[in-house]
């Protein structure tokens, strides 16, 4: 381990003592003790809602702890994020904090601009950013605009931001969520290089392989409490998984039984045009039987979003046909798709999945709210809504179990449970699930998968759109691959492998 870069080598980089933070209805952090030594990579793991993000917000000064003490390099932290950042703490947030129409350099220097009090010296800023990038192998054009960069590049900008401020304790909140495999490896290389340089890294994740591959020490949170803090050589993936979830994790459920149903959803020669006027779907044809899961694999942005939108009536196709049962859907409104039994778990949960300022109960009956028992004539029946919400909340394990809580305040995993609960409560004939486990932890993922499998056994025709091949291979009866708006192949599960699918995903035709 590197020598600590401080005058006080006995102190810890970060120390938290009995930190407690209460939100309405949730005890997010319950008497948490955390010790992070200088120069280590310290992983903090836990499921969605375990309190990781809250803890880091307390550390960064964005939130104030109700009780307890936080020490950063031996100094107490109290409120005021910019004072904490001046003490050397740098945060890389899960949702990047970048101004999209600013350049890389402008984003990096914001709040800490070089030059005199008035004048903005952009040239000096760009030079500084370029030099910093070269030092750490984070190559970026300082004059490029954020909105033109890939997600991986944007993350590098975030890292440059904290380095530019001279931060030596760097917190990364779920940094690998949005990265490709190669970007992930590059990130790990960068982090190792930073630690060699004497910095301390706190790394929040729920991917256990990453913890084993990267970190020196790991602290496990469960329901707001620390359940273990271990050196990495003293543990393994199975132990960590068990600590994190609080029980032994069985293997995920598997498909059982053959598909015997009739074709319920049939798409033939479907074409659609994107907002930019490009051909997003170019002659897509497939069918899904009742009781079947068709996995649709593909690199994101190859027409999946447009396909889901046309299948739910949100986007009008420019050609081709969608049949549901024996009905043609030509000219249907989204309401008609809904009435015909099409349910959708949309990819952008916060925009399309839930109405964040609405309560859990309101979100759970959306789409059915105009029908009995939730509406009588013009009037909503709030009692019926609450009763329905209570039963779905308990069936789907939504936390906190209060129908009147605003969905905005839920964790991502619980928001997804609300979406899944609502859609399945419609008893769908056709279920379209777009990236249903994105951002979810192990338990959330298993939960979503078992829901899909249950719908399959109930006879729904399921289209599972995902860029997660493991998920597709686990669940799909057949697997289709989309590339540039065309289906490049449809394989039965038995014939599919990651290798074959990978080739189809980059456009090699079968």
């Amino acid at each position, binding site marked *: 381990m590197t020598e600590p870069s401080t005058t006080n080598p006995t102190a810890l980089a970060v120390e938290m003592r009995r930190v407690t933070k209460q939100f309405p209805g949730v005890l997010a952090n319950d008497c948490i003790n955390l010790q992070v030594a200088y120069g280590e990579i310290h992983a903090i793991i836990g499921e969605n809602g375990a309190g990781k993000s809250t803890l880091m917000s307390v550390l*960064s000064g*964005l939130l104030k702890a109700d009780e307890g003490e936080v020490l950063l390099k031996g100094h107490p932290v109290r409120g005021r*994020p*910019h004072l904490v*950042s*001046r003490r050397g703490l740098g*945060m890389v*947030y899960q949702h990047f*904090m*970048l*101004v*999209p*129409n*600013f350049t890389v350099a*402008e*984003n990096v*220097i*914001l*709040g*800490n*601009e070089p*030059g005199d*009090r*008035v*004048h*903005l010296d952009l040239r000096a800023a760009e030079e500084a950013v370029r030099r910093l990038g070269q030092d750490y192998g984070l190559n970026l054009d300082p004059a490029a605009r954020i909105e033109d960069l890939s997600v991986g590049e944007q993350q590098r900008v975030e890292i440059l*931001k904290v380095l530019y401020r001279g931060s030596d304790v760097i917190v990364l909140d779920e940094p690998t969520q949005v990265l490709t495999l190669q970007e992930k490896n590059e990130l790990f290389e960068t982090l190792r290089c930073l630690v060699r340089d004497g910095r301390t890294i706190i790394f929040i994740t729920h991917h256990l392989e990453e913890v084993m591959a990267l970190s020196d020490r790991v602290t496990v949170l469960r329901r707001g409490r620390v359940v273990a803090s271990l050196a990495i050589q003293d543990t393994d993936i199975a132990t960590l998984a068990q600590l994190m979830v609080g029980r032994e994790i069985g293997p995920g459920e598997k498909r059982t039984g053959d598909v015997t149903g009739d074709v319920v959803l049939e798409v033939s020669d479907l074409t659609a045009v994107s907002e930019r006027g490009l051909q997003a779907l170019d002659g897509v044809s497939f069918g899904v039987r009742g009781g079947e899961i068709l996995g649709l694999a593909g690199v994101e942005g190859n027409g999946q979003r447009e396909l889901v939108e046309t299948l739910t009536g949100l986007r009008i196709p420019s050609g081709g046909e969608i049949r549901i049962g024996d009905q043609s859907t030509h000219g249907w409104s989204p309401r008609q798709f809904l009435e015909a039994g099409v349910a959708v778990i949309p990819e952008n949960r916060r925009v399309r999945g839930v109405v964040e300022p609405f309560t859990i109960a309101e979100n759970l009956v959306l789409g059915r709210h105009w029908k009995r028992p939730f509406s009588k004539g013009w009037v909503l029946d709030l009692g019926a809504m609450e009763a329905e919400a209570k039963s779905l909340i308990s069936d789907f394990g939504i936390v906190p179990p209060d129908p009147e809580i605003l969905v905005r305040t839920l964790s991502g995993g619980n928001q997804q449970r609300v979406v899944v609960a609502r859609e399945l409560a419609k008893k769908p004939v056709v279920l379209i699930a777009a990236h249903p486990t994105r951002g979810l932890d192990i338990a959330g993922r298993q939960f979503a998968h078992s829901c899909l499998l249950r719908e399959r056994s109930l006879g729904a025709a399921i289209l599972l759109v995902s860029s997660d091949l493991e998920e597709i291979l686990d669940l799909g009866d057949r697997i289709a691959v989309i590339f540039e708006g065309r289906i490049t192949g449809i394989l039965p599960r038995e014939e599919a492998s990651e290798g074959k699918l990978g080739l189809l995903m980059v456009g090699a035709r079968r």
Partner: protein
Amino acid sequence: MGDSGVALFFMTLLVSTLRKATPLILASLGGFFSEKSGVVNIALEGIMLFGAFVGAVVAQTTQNPWLGVLAAAGVGGAVAAIHATASIWFRANQIVSGLGVNLLAVGATIFLCEVYTGGQRSFMLSVSEKLPRWGPFLPLVYIALLMVPVVYLMVYRTRQGLRLRAVGEHPEAARTMGVDVQMTRFWAVVISGVLAGVAGSFLPFFAGSFAKNMTNGLGYIALGALIFGRWTPWGALAASLLFGSADALQEMLQGRGGVPSQFFQMVPYVLTMVALAGIVGRAIPPRALGIPLRKE
């Protein structure tokens, strides 16, 4: 009309256009400050009216037009501070708060005018004869034109300008970088009010008198100029000149038959709607426009 007649027509049009555009330029630059920081400012209209009244009263009382302009700047900043406080700290709906300022301005200026004049709703400005002229124009015209590059440099070439743009686009990002989002917005709105107040003070000087509700929608047209100019200072200048020329034409053609003058009065509104509808390329407002910062 002979050749010299045509030349005279265009000279008159040009001079008149610049005069008409002057308050629009300043007020739309004011709007630029506020909106770039993420605060919608339809209060421009009311602030201009306050500026017109206070400017006229102070100039008349002290017999010094410059003191009038200064007072208008002060009252503009003060009124804007009300709108800023409501929108930023109390997270009031910014349209409603702005509308409140506008309604207050109409009532308050009429009332104060009656108090000042002893019952009249307008008064003549004897001081306007003492106004200096640089060439064909009042100095105010040159000041307005000069403000365009000044505002451009302030917003795009200073540290505070970078922060102002950041809080208008992504306030959370700015906050995590240690920028005080709320104070940055507050000062942007106050500067906006100073500029709009000064813009308003021009009106009685040009007219030689103050009359009730004399802004008559100019503040809204200035906001339209800002939007038509796609939220840039140079665009706001160009749009102000265009809208000013429409007004000037309308005035010159009045009583001449042919095109009805209402047609030209309509031009700023139609063009603003065209800009908003994205017919001539999309006008992209600051992303956080109208959204107060939440700290939770």
